[in-house]
């Protein structure tokens, strides 16, 4: 039974709900499935209650109240669709359109615009405005973000993001009243590692990423939940794809990892990830490297491992998934695991001051922690560790840029599992095409030890398949396991073999991610 002193009863459009004191009407309404329209309110920012879009009728109150800041009181009765509340909402839409250019056909936000959405929802489809509109024009606020002044509804979300979250208060409302617009204090462009979040928070098409400008209509994009591979933070993202290409990445809320935000660099990394010429078919070395079908490729790999090539050493990419690294480890174990190495590209760290849990981490790979859990070691020069190895040599999705001349020449067998065929990779005996994170289901383990799932967003090119698929099929041929039918099944096997993952399943990880065992006890101790 609910503790009466700690919860309050509110009735919203006839639905009763018990909420803790301090809950806003807007939040309470969401609990009963009533989503109130809002412009200035954003859950990751302070609430200035200035757009007045979320006004509701509260019995006994002399005026309509802004639900985004009005806290519930016990026995409050709220009507969100009373005639007055609906009229007020329609009026706000009408007012917002007084000076709005209605250039939806050429606006990047069309299809994901809260002004469009509510205009349709509130049924305000005609305008009574016959007088000329103000014209404000457009201007850059950062080298990559354009501000379309005419579309701006002055909700100040962007200003508050820079003030409160970035904690670099560079944006402000300039002028006042209807002449108001958004600009930097000095009028100069600004730069910030997290600046593109202002595009995300903008409820309309006033702030636009130049990179995406006119690239795609929002409704043409397919969306897939994913994890940013840009650094070891593991920001939860949504990949927007069109024609089998990643067009953009937007943050997906996860309060444990990235709140509502992600960094600019991550967005760019994602869009460029896996671009360029792709390795699309398995290949075997005869006189030269020649494409083969999967049967022959897997047979060759099976044969090679059966032939006792000598203990295996390998170089892996820490951008590979947990599942791929696990399978790699098992393939290497067939020959005898003799050491696996990975490089961690490092760059400057940028902490998001207002949500310091989130940083663009200096480790610019997503799964260094995972690679370590499967027994791979980080190394400043992983190529040197394996260069003169004489047994089996495995390389997983490392482009081998900068590998020494004659890399892999001394190995009994050189297996290259990758997405691109660099000149160094061309020296491999067996080449297996694998998929990028965007082309498969899988998990990364972030710097905290949080295992997070990503979903496939793209079709893999040509014959490329996830390594769990080709690798486990090989293991089956070798008689050391069974071929997995899914990434989830692979993960279940992995969790059975590695204690850190014990008890985790795709289902239990869910959309928010789960900590590995040692990280759980750490947080428990810290908490």
């Amino acid at each position, binding site marked *: 039974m609910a503790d009466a002193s700690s919860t309050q009863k509110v009735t919203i459009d006839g639905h009763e709900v018990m909420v803790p004191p301090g809950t806003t009407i807007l939040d309470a309404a969401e609990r009963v499935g009533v989503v109130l329209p809002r*412009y200035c309110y954003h859950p990751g920012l302070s609430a*200035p*209650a*200035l*757009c*007045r*879009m979320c*006004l509701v009728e509260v019995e006994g109150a002399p*005026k*309509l109240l*802004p639900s985004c*800041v009005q806290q519930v009181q016990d026995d409050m009765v709220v009507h969100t669709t009373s005639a007055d509340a609906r*009229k*007020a909402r329609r*009026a*706000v839409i*009408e*007012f*917002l359109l*007084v*000076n709005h250019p209605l250039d939806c056909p050429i606006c990047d936000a069309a299809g994901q615009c809260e002004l469009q959405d509510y205009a349709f929802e509130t049924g305000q489809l005609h305008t*009574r*405005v016959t*007088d*000329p509109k*103000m014209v404000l024009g457009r201007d850059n606020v950062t080298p990559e973000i354009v501000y379309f002044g005419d579309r701006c*509804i*002055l909700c*100040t979300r962007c200003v508050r993001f820079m003030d409160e979250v970035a904690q670099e208060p560079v944006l*402000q*409302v300039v*002028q*006042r*009243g*209807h*002449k*108001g617009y958004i600009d930097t204090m000095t009028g100069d462009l600004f730069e910030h590692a997290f600046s593109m979040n202002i595009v995300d928070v903008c409820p309309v098409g006033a702030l636009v990423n130049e990179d995406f400008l006119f690239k795609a209509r929002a409704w043409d994009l397919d969306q897939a939940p994913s994890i940013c591979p840009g650094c070891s933070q593991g920001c939860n993202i949504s990949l927007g794809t069109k024609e089998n290409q990643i067009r953009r990445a937007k943050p997906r809320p996860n309060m444990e990892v990235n709140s509502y935000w992600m960094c600019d660099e991550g967005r760019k990394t994602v869009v460029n990830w896996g671009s360029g010429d792709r390795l699309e078919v398995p290949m075997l070395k005869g006189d030269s490297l020649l494409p083969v079908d999967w049967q022959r490729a897997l047979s060759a790999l099976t044969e090679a491992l059966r032939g006792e090539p000598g203990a295996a050493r390998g170089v892996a990419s820490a951008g590979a998934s947990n599942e791929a690294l696990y399978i790699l480890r098992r393939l290497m174990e067939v020959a005898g695991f003799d050491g696996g190495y990975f490089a961690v590209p490092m760059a400057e760290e940028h902490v998001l001051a207002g949500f310091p849990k989130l940083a663009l981490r200096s480790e610019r790979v997503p799964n260094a922690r995972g690679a370590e859990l499967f027994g791979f070691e980080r190394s400043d020069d992983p190529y040197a560790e394996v260069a003169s190895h004489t047994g089996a040599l495995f390389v997983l999705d490392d482009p081998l840029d900068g590998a020494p001349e004659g890399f892999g020449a001394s190995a009994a067998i050189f297996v290259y599992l990758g997405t691109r065929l660099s000149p160094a990779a061309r020296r491999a005996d067996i080449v297996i095409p694998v998929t990028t994170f965007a082309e498969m289901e899988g998990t990364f383990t972030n710097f905290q030890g949080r295992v997070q799932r990503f979903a496939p967003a793209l079709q893999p090119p040509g014959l490329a398949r996830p390594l769990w698929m080709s690798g486990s099929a090989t293991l089956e041929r070798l008689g050391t396991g069974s071929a997995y039918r899914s990434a989830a099944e692979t993960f279940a096997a992995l969790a059975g073999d590695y204690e850190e993952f014990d008890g985790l399943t795709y289902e239990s990880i869910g959309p928010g991610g789960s900590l590995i065992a040692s990280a759980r006890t750490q947080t428990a101790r810290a908490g």
Partner: protein
Amino acid sequence: MAYPHSHPRETRILSEHFGEIEATTLDGWIERGGYKAVEKALGSMSREQVIEVVKESGLRGRGGAGFPTGLKWSFMPKDDTLPHYLVCNADESEPGTFKDREIMRWTPHQLLEGCIIGSYAIGASHCYIYIRGEFVDVIPVVNQAVVDAYSRGYLGRDILGSGYSLELTVHLGAGAYIAGEETGMLNSLEGRRAEPRIKPPFPAAKGAFGMPTTVNNVESLAVVPHIVTNGGDWYRQWGTEKSSGTKLFSCCGHLQKPGTYEIAMDFNLKDLLYDLCGGPPEGREFKAVIPGGSSVPILAADELDAECSYEGLEAAGSMVGSGGLIAMDDSTNMVHAVRRMVEFYAHESCGQCTQCREGTYWAAKILRRIERGGGREEDIPLLLDISANMAGKTICVLSDSAAAPIVSSIQKFQDDYMALIAKGQHAAVGT
């Protein structure tokens, strides 16, 4: 008869020394009985007693809202763990209002006395006077008074040996009407944009710099020394039960003798207009009067027989507001007058609230179009609907203030609108 215009029917408490240049100096003020009230309050009264006597007097805030001053003071937290502030609202920007200017220009020490006693009553250690920046002639007078008061120990540490210390800072506004709204003022004082805050929290809980704060109008504070000296009952001898004492009305527009007049609050508006202000110019008649600053509803000529009390003017269909009376004679085109007012609000809206930012702009556009001969009959219901959509839905009441003259002018002077619409061409009403 000295001060620009004065009249025997006035009740001159605040304005007694208006026009006397010596009263602006500290010595001149002390000769006129100045700072006795400060001595009394700080020397022999507790904070609670000061609040009590102001409550007894029935004094209501003169800045526009008419909220009882003593009651407002009593909302301040009783414990002093956090610093308290008194902010004197001297931003006087309401069109038609210039009575605070007269208080500061002629009797700066009268205001300082009020500030000191008010600060003492609410336990403030620092008082700010936020003066409208355009008051270039008033600012040096107040500044000099502050310097003199410090030099004589009326301000600063241990005032008159009472153990009470108070710092006072004069802060200049930068030209925004909205900085007169009390929470907009607090933001401006803190160096932010003068944007009104959502309430709650009220200033008494979280005001200047996040600390308990009281904001009072110049006139509200300036009368406090008289109440402390003479008592609450003395103040109640004027006015009505609900509207005690006297009030300054700054009267402007089409009047023979415009000026600032101090009247008991039960004075008749018609007498104020015809007797004290000398009526409309020769050969003209009043057409409309706004009794309390542009934010209050307009009264028509047949509504002027009203008592100038809060309840009296409300019964007549308007409000005391700030006491900024604007008289308009029969040469006035009301569409023109209202358009001018709405443009003022459009210019001064801080722009936070959608209804206010866009509504003032849109309504001004429509009014201007009507004025220029492009009006349509459906503009009338449209203006009324826009006004309804603007009123009662925003953070502060500027939006309501902009809507009020539109509505009252359409209700009372629709003929002016219809004539312009009918004319359907450029109307010769100037700009």
